[in-house]
């Protein structure tokens, strides 16, 4: 007699995260409504105190969300929060002439250029718990693996994505800029196309 399979009760929280309020740009009040997509809560209320070990969400090669919990082991942090270095900073070059700087080891006609990085406005970006795409996470694609996947980070090339699931497509936001200025493009659109496959490409893989 076949034992009846009793699947474990999945703890599903039917409660929808409640909206919360905050003040942005020093004096503007705002109500933020969290949304849950594929198990990930966007625009969640940030914890009152942070110690750098809050869980964050990474993406695997197909674009599935994976929760990472930073831990301190042996004095090092395992699964640390992603560091975006200067990928999302806007860079400005400032030039100093000799008169302005009067450095002792500077020639009279020498000009000193200094790069200054300014942080981006993370009012809304900070509400996204998922790891952001940076050129560091690009991968190589194409038959010879010599084509960069820019601006995409996920999904990876030739991954199998199942119907009925939700996958996160991520791209580097500062990849597209207006040609005449270095302003980032405001909007983008994603399209899906069918590809015709030759029998050879399809292969004889058994379903």
């Amino acid at each position, binding site marked *: 007699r076949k034992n*009846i*399979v009793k699947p474990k009760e999945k703890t599903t929280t039917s409660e929808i995260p409640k909206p919360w309020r905050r003040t942005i740009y020093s004096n503007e009040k705002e109500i933020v409504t969290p949304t849950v*997509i*594929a198990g990930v809560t966007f625009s969640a209320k940030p914890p009152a105190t942070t110690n750098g070990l809050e869980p964050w969400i990474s993406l695997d090669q*197909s*674009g599935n969300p994976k929760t990472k919990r930073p831990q301190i082991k042996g004095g090092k942090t395992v699964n640390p929060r992603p560091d975006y270095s200067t990928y999302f900073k806007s860079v400005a070059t400032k030039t100093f002439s000799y008169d302005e700087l009067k450095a002792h080891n500077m020639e009279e006609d020498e000009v000193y250029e200094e790069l200054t990085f300014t942080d981006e406005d993370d009012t*809304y*970006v900070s509400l*996204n718990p*998922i790891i*952001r*795409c940076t050129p560091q996470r690009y991968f190589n*694609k194409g038959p010879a693996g010599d084509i960069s*996947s*820019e*601006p*995409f980070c996920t*999904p*990876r*090339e*030739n*991954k*199998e*994505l*199942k*119907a*009925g*699931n*939700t*996958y*996160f*497509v*991520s*791209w*580097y*936001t500062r*990849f*597209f800029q*207006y*040609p005449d200025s270095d302003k*980032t*493009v*405001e*909007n*983008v*659109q*994603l*399209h*899906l*196309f*069918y*590809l015709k*496959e030759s029998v050879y*490409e399809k292969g004889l893989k058994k*379903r």
Partner: protein
Amino acid sequence: DLKAAFFSSGWLKNVDGIYPLELTADFLDGAFDKKVLLAIQPENINDEDFNPWEHYVVFRMIKGSRVAKTTKQQKALQDAGISDDTWYYVALSIPTVVVIACVVMYFFLYLNKNHRDIHDVKDFAINQRRRVLGKFKDFKKYKKINNRPYSELPTHTKKTGKQN
């Protein structure tokens, strides 16, 4: 070009840099798997100039394997006591019928053991076996001997004068 796209997300805020793509079964058009090209179009490129092969990722969309598990409906039926295990009955009943038939045959033969005469069958079986040897008188070698089952041993007789 864009007319060939079977899915377009509409204009998204580029600053987010992320989009939850939900793949629905009807994207597959009934096939089991399809190779799909995912392309991104910035707003400063219009539809005519857009080249999907410029910034793209190719992935394979599959229907996914279906594990034959007791689905919720089946489980609910089982809970309600309705179980469609007719094949249980079939699997159990056939050997039972065979066993009952054997037992009945055994008792039938046992009861009729004195009212049975099968010597003709037995003789036929034995003749079949003897047929391998055949009748002795038919053997060329033993044609002159009268039904002696053994071949004669060689005899060493003295020579007569005539043969010298």
